[in-house]
C-alpha cells in the first residue's frame, strides 16, 4: 500500500491548555488532532497537574514544513511557565494527502 512520510508531533501538557493549544495548532496548519488524557511525572513533579484535571496528550500529524513553527510556538509560549513537553517522530501514513 502506498504510504507517505510525515511527522507526528506529540505535545503532553496541563489540561487547562487544551483549548488554546488545539486552536493554535489548527491555525498553524494542522488538519486534525487527537487528544487523550494521560498521567505521569516529570521534572516539575506531579505538582504540575496540581490544578484539577488530568494531563492531556495531543497528537497531530503534519507536513515536515509545519513542524518548526509548532515547536517554536510551544517553546516560546508554554515551556517557561507550564508543564509541557513536545517531541517529533517520522511516521508512515496512508492517505497522506489528508494531513497536508
Amino acid at each position: 500500500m502506498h504510504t507517505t512520510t510525515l511527522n507526528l508531533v506529540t505535545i503532553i501538557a496541563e489540561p487547562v491548555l487544551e483549548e488554546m493549544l488545539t486552536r493554535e495548532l489548527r491555525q498553524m496548519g494542522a488538519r486534525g488532532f487527537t487528544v487523550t488524557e494521560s498521567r505521569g511525572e516529570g521534572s516539575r513533579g506531579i505538582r504540575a497537574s496540581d490544578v484539577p484535571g488530568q494531563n492531556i496528550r495531543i497528537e497531530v500529524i503534519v507536513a515536515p514544513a509545519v513542524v518548526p513553527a509548532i515547536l517554536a510556538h510551544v517553546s516560546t509560549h508554554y515551556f517557561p511557565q507550564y508543564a509541557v513537553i513536545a517531541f517529533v517522530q517520522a511516521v508512515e501514513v496512508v492517505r497522506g494527502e489528508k494531513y497536508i
Partner: protein
Amino acid sequence: MGLSEILRANLLSPIPLAFALGVVAKLVRSEFTLPRDIYTGLSIYLLFSLGLKGGVELAHASPASIAWPAAATLLLGCITPITTYLVLRRLGRFGVADSAGIAAHYGSVSAVTYIAAMSFTKAVGADAEGFMPTLLALLESPGIHIALAIGAVKTASPDRAVGHVLHEVLTGRTMVLLVGGLVIGALMGEKGWTAIETFYDPKGAVFKGALTLFILEMGVVAGSRLGDLRKVGPFLLGFGIIMPILHGALGVWLGHLAGLSVGGATVLGAMAASASYIAAPPAVRITLPDANPTYYLTAALAITFPFNILLGIPLYYEMARWLAG
C-alpha cells in the same frame, strides 16, 4: 445553646466527620479515592439542586426583599478580592501574580462551604432565606474577574488568555447549573417542583447523602495537600484562617444591614469567608501562569475550607446572633 455546645454539635455532624475520614484515608495512604467522574457527577447534582430550589423560592420573593441582600453580595464580591490582594502584597510580601491568584480564589465563593452553612443554620433552627442560591450565583464570578484584572494589568499577562478565561468563568459548570437551575426553578414554580422535590430538595435525604460523599472526597483532596502546608510558610497559614474571619465578619455585618435574618447573615458571612476551588484554579492557571498553584490551592483547600466547616460557620453564626441582639 452556648458556643461550645454549638461547636461540638457541628463537629459531630456528618459534614466535618466525612471530611475528617477523607483526610485520615489519605494520611494512612489508603488507596481510596472517589472516581473522578462520580465526583464531577455529584458536584453537578449538588449545584443543579441548589439552582432549582433557589429558583422556586425566588419566584416567591418580592424584588424589594432581595434587592439589598443582592447589593450587599455584589459589594462583597468587589471588596474581598481587593482586600486579599492588598494584604498579601503589602503585609505578606507576595509577588503580584501570587497575590492576584490567591485573591481570585478568596474573592469567589465555595459552593460546598455555602451548603455546609445552609445545613448548619437549619440544624440550629435559624433557617436562611430561600433566595440565598441567587446570592451564591451573584458572588461566584465578580471576585475572579476583579483579581484577574488586577493581575493582568500589573503583569501584562498574555492577552489571548483573558477573553478565553472570561468566557470560561461565565460559562463554567457552576454558572450554567446554578443560573440555569434558578431560571428553570422560577419558571416551573411550586407545581413543577413538587414532581421532582424528592430527588432535588437540598433539605432532603438524597441531597445530604450525596453531599456527604462529595465532602468525603474533598477530605481526600485536602489530605493530599497537607504536606504542602510546610511549603507555603507561616504567613499564608495564618492568612488562611484570619482572612476568612475578617471577610466573614464583613459578610455577616453587610447581611445584617441588608435586612437578612440571623441565618441569612450567617450564610452570607460564610460565603464571603470561603475561597473557590472549582472555578478559580483553572482560570488563574491560564491567566496568571507565574502564580504558584501550591499557594492558592493549599490555602483554599487545606486551610480555609476545613477552618470554615469546622469552626468558621459557628463563629459567623455567633457574630450574626450578637448583631441581631
